[in-house]
Every structure is written in C-alpha cells, then in structure tokens.
C-alpha cells in the first residue's frame, strides 16, 4: 500500500505569461516501509517536490497524498523531515532539540524525556545530550536532526540532501548508519540527493528526475540484498546501475 501518492504534480513559479515551470506532471508512488530516493541534477525541482510533500508549498496543479490524505499543510506526527542544513536551535542542547517537536505537540515531560533519550541512543549521541549544536561536528548535528525528525514517530521521513554538506567519509558513514536506523525503526524514507552512489547504496528504488522542468524519467529498482556493506559500491553491478542512471539524466537534457 502506498504511503506517498503523487499525481500529475505541476509547480510553476512567478505568475504572468511566462511562469517558470519547476515540476512538470510528476507522478509516482512510494510503498510503506521502503527507502526511496529521488535523484536529479541541481535545480531540477527535487527540493520543490519535497517541500510540497512536507506541506510547505502548494502545487500549482495536481495533488500529493500521504496515507491517502491530501497534503495541504505540514502534517506533524505523520511526516518528519531532515533538512540539508541541520536547522537545530542554537540555544537548545542536543537533547532539547530532539525534544522540541514533542514539546510543540504538548507531550508530557516524562514521556518526552524517555523518547528523546532513546532517540539519541539510536543515533549514537547518548553522551552528547547536553552539548549545544556549536559544540558538535557537522555529522553529529545531522544525527541530532535525524533524531528530531523521528521524535514525533512519523511513518514517513523526508530527507532533503541531508549529507550534502558533509565530507566524503562522514557522508558514507552517515549513509550506512542511516540504513541501520531505518531498519531499526521501520519508517518509510523519501530521500533526495544528487549523488548517484549515495542513492543506489541506500535505496530500494531510485526515481530519476530530468533537468528542469522536473519530470520523473524512470524508476530503477535496486535489488542488492540487505543489510548492505559499503563494498557493493565498488561492484560491477553497482557501476552498471550508476552508468544507466547517469545516461538517463544526461540524455534527458
């Protein structure tokens, strides 16, 4: 059963005679519990699509549904999000940042504290609960942001190039750990990246988007068994998929 259903989504910016079309009749569905990644060149409208799913922007035409419900605003508790920039509150500790979404929702204190401790444990930052964001490395901040995204126990996590600002090694490590977190929590992850390797390594399926105006040009199923080891990135099968996606994107220009 699909948790995300997107049908004939169009997003245009700027009114008037020549609006800029960012998304062009985008349709796809994501099944519950899957890890699906959307790849595409910069400026193809990936982030716009994610913002529509998060209820932050309204589409010009078409619709997006999450768990059958039409998206017309943020859906806290249903949809969690991790941004490219960790967007942690600098005046709150790691713990309080993870607690923030529960605090907004008005959960009682003991339940909040228990959940946040467990989440920080899950992302491997139990000892850093009392640290402020500026005392943490980029990777650690993003781990806090992931824990925060999970706080309200949403079924769906949207991730907008969450590792793009990290160095190569941290990025690979974070991807690997994200898979563990995903396996442990059973969430659906909808991930955006422009890194083909990251997309293939992480996902059950990769949606390939064309340059602007963004269209879904193909959906590639990734069948590597799980749990996956980083070694698969060097394999011939991995390289073949990578090349295929690469050609899809370059020919779509």
């Amino acid at each position: 059963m699909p948790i995300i259903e997107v049908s004939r989504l169009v997003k245009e910016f700027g009114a008037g005679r020549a609006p800029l079309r960012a998304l062009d009749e985008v349709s796809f569905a994501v099944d519950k519990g899957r890890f699906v990644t959307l790849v595409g060149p910069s400026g193809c409208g990936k982030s716009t699509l994610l913002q529509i799913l998060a209820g932050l922007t309204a589409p010009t035409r078409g619709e997006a549904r999450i768990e059958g419900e039409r998206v017309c605003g943020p859906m806290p508790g249903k949809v969690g999000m991790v941004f490219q920039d960790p967007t942690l509150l600098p005046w709150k500790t790691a713990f309080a940042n993870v607690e923030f979404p529960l605090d907004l929702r008005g959960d009682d204190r003991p339940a909040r504290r228990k959940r946040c401790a467990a989440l920080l444990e899950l992302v491997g930052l139990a000892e850093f609960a009392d640290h402020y964001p500026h005392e943490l490395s980029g990777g650690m901040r993003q781990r806090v942001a992931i824990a925060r995204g999970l706080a309200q126990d949403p079924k769906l996590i949207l991730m907008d190039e969450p590792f793009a600002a990290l160095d190569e090694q941290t990025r690979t490590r974070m991807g690997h750990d994200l898979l563990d977190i995903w396996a442990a929590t059973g969430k659906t992850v909808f991930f955006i990246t422009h890194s083909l390797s990251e997309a293939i390594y992480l996902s059950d399926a990769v949606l390939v988007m064309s340059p602007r105006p963004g269209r879904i040009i193909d959906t590639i199923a990734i069948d590597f068994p799980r749990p996956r080891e980083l070694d698969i990135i060097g394999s011939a099968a991995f390289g073949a998929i990578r090349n295929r996606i690469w050609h899809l994107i370059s020919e779509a220009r």
Partner: protein
Amino acid sequence: MRAAIAGYLIFVVVLLGGWELAARLSAVDPDLLPPPAEVGAVLWQFLHDPRFLGDLALTANEVAAAFVIAAPLAVSTGFLLGERLHLAETFNPLVHFILAVPQSIFLPIFILAFGIGFLEKVLFGITHAYFVILINSFAAVRSIPRPLVTAARVFGATRAQIYTRIYLPAMLPLILTGLRLGMIFCIIGVLLAEMYASRRGIGQLIFDWGEGQQIPELLAGIVLISVLTIAVNELMRLAELRLAQFRAAAAAG
C-alpha cells in the same frame, strides 16, 4: 571574566594613582585638579546631602521614565518594520536620515514646545533612545534564520509557538543590545537637556559647578555619574550574556 575584572582594577588603580601623582607633584594647577582624596570627601558629603540626592533621584526618574516609554515603543516598531518589509522600505531611509542628524540641535525646539521640566527631559530622552533600539529590534527580526522557522512549521508549530519558541529566543541577543544602547542614549539625552536648561537635576548641577569653577564638586559629580552609568551598562551586559549565552558561545566556537 577574571581577566576582564583584572583589567578594570588595573584601570582604576592607574587612573587614581596617576591623578594622585599629578596632584602631589603639582603637575597640574591644583585648582584645576584637586587630589582624589579631596574629591572623594566631597562625594561622600554629597551622598549624605538630601538636596543632592533629590537631584540625583529626579535625573534617575527622568531616565527611567524615558526608557520605560521608549523601549516597548521602539522594540515593537522595529519588529513591525522587520516583519513587514514593504513598510521597512518606506521608513528605514527615514530612520537612518534621522539618526544621521545630531539630535542635540533639536533641544531648543523641545524647550519651545514643551517648556523646561520633567516632560521635556523625558521626551528628549525618548527621542534619543528610540531610534537606536528600533534599529536593533529591526536587525533582530531580520537575523532570525528562516530555515529554523520552516523546520518548526514542519513539526507542527502554531503561529504563537513560532513567535515564542523561535522568534523570541533568536531575537533576544540583539534586542538586549539595543536596550542597553538605548539606556545609554536615554542618559545622554536627559543629561544633555538638564545641562542646557534646567532648574534641577544632576546635569544642571554639573553645569553650574563648571560655570562656578567648583572643581572638586564638578569632579565628584563626574565620578559619580561615570560609576553609575558604568554599573547600569555592565548589569545590562551581564543580563545580555546570561540570556543569550548561546550566541556568544557560538561566535567563539
């Protein structure tokens, strides 16, 4: 902090020592620079003189009244301009225009319009403080990182929660800086008005002592006002650092 206190102490010791030395060696005409002990004795007398204390209280009341009126007005207009940028486009040039003109030149007009007295002093203090607080309040709104607001929206923050949980703490450091500067400007405005034309108040006393070449009294007044204003400034700075620790820490880290 300890180093800063040492700095203050060294400053005070060098100042008093240099002063004492200059007076003893008669390096400066003793009529122009009486020794610190003599000035200290005058100051001690002042602190037991009800008439002097009455003048001091009057000035303090004028400053307090000006600040209490200017602060909320200026913070809220600064906030409004920060939130409504089309208003800012209209009014910001005006604010900078007004700030560029030395306000002291308007004092005669204040006197013509409001007479000489409490009201005129307070109004002159208000106009001194208003714009500097406004500018900081405006900058505080503009300094709120928009992605933090977006993230809060995704987690279901209501409008009220966005104001209290994101706006307020994010704006606090700059607002406090504005209030501290505003307080200093209030004091400047009130003292200036008192020195220019007044029947009572510490500014008027200082001006009279200068006119009458009553140097020990003049110096005692200067020392007292310096100590008081430094104390007010430092207290407000301490509050600033306490309430906005994250900002100082983030800037240092």
